[in-house]
């Protein structure tokens, strides 16, 4: 796929006409990254506005004991960059961004993008939506870390992203949910005993979605 085709395929740029897509593609480029590649360090500055075209990226921080604190996943078609202010000519990264699955990233020169689109009140709504989506992820993070108990955390992930749950190792899931592996095992046993889920060859199958939702929102 060419850059132009990629831009046309992204919902974010759907409001642009052909000429604008042409202009945008003139200062955009594509980069592909292998799994576990560390794309950005926290507090790093970038000149590019980045979109994840395919693959999966992970946002995390490191605490003083060198423990990885998982924040959220960035899925394909989403903005990788973080926009803290529209006044700045550069973009700062609040957290470390690493590639979780082999990915393709679209890089757009932010200064040119700003002068050609944002300053002309184009794509502002789309950008606001992306900022809102990031805000929602942070809200989920607050719920996960401060409000939910262990059972709710696991149930919420099973209910919201079962595919991802089955794809990842148990150890990684416990890291994401910020719980101990033993606790994850206990919760899965508890859900299995209550006939809400079943575990077949290590893969989770939801038996009672309503009961799972109830546990998650309890």
């Amino acid at each position, binding site marked *: 796929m060419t850059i132009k085709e990629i831009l046309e395929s992204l919902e974010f740029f759907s409001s642009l006409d052909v000429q604008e897509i042409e202009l945008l593609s003139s200062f955009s480029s594509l980069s592909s990254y292998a799994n576990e590649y560390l794309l950005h360090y926290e507090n790093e500055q970038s000149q590019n506005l980045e979109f994840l075209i395919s693959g999966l990226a992970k946002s995390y921080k490191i605490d003083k004991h060198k423990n990885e604190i998982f924040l959220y996943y960035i899925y394909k078609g989403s903005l990788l960059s973080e926009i803290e202010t529209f006044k700045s000519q550069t973009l700062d990264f609040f957290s470390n961004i690493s590639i979780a699955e082999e990915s393709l990233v679209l890089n757009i020169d932010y200064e040119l993008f700003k002068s050609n689109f944002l300053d002309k009140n184009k794509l502002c709504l789309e950008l606001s939506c992306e900022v809102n989506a990031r805000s929602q992820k942070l809200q989920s993070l607050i719920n996960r870390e401060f409000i939910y108990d*262990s*059972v709710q955390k696991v149930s919420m992930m099973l209910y919201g992203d079962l595919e991802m749950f089955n794809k990842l190792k148990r150890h990684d899931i416990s890291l994401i949910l910020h719980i*101990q592996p*033993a*606790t994850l095992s*206990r919760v899965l046993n508890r859900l299995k005993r*209550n*006939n809400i889920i079943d575990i077949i060859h290590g893969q989770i199958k939801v038996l009672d979605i309503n009961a799972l939702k109830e546990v998650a929102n309890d």
Partner: protein
Amino acid sequence: MTKIKIVGILIFTLSITLALLSSHMSKQNSINNDFLDVINAQKAFTQDIAKNIFFIYRYRKTSTNELDKSIKAFIKNMKNKDRLIVQGDSKSISNKLDDITSAWNKYYLLVQNFRDTKEIVSPYANILLDKLVNDIYHININLVLEFDELIKLHNKEYDNKHYFTKTLQYTLFTLLVMLLLYLFTQLKGLISFMQKFLSTSKKIITNSSIKELEPIKIKDENKEILLASNNFNFLVEKINISIENSSRSIEHSFSSLYQVENNIEDLLELIYTMQKSLPIDKELTKKEDALIDSLEELTTSAKKLQDLKSDLDALVSSCILKS
């Protein structure tokens, strides 16, 4: 410390006093030397006059210019003498000066007579000239002796007058030396404390550990030094106790947490067994959720304690102190 301060002030005051006294003595010595220079110059001039007289008496046709010059120089120097004598005035010196003046007047009169008689050429004038030269010779010797006596009198008077000042100067100097010695003995204790403090601190730093710190051992009677070493040792003791207590508390917390965890595990096992035989009980499930969460909290707390322990270990025996 107060003693050192007082001794320091005394040393400073004594040094200033000694400096002023030395300056005064130096000034007096300079005046004395000037006076002696004048007296010696007068002595030299009378000798010069006598020498010229004898030369002219032997060679009659010789000019009297040199003789006149010596007389003029003597008279000019007499004015300086009068100025200097005022400062070292005493009765014996005054009397001696009167004697010298009287002798000089006689001498000067004879010299003038010699000058006048020298021009006359007659047998009688020759007899007079012989007598005049003879008189000049004797008065000159008399003048030299009088001058020597004046110098002796002046030196004696000078020594008497400055005896007190010199004694005071020596006394103050001795006192200053004694104070310096006393200050050194006082500082010796302080320096020894500083050296021990520095070596102990260095030991702590190079050991890269704050475990089992050793206190400073000081044998000093100085209150301030004892107080400082006690404070340092108290701090060292506190650090040792804190490190010991912290390690013990963390270990105790660990074991307590594991005990609680085991109890909860047992409780969970009990709930599982109860649920196997009975239909799902919502209340029981909620209790199970709470227990799972409690276990999670306990495990997290144990992990946090472990992190805290490693932080403490790093503080105790890592290279934190090196930086």
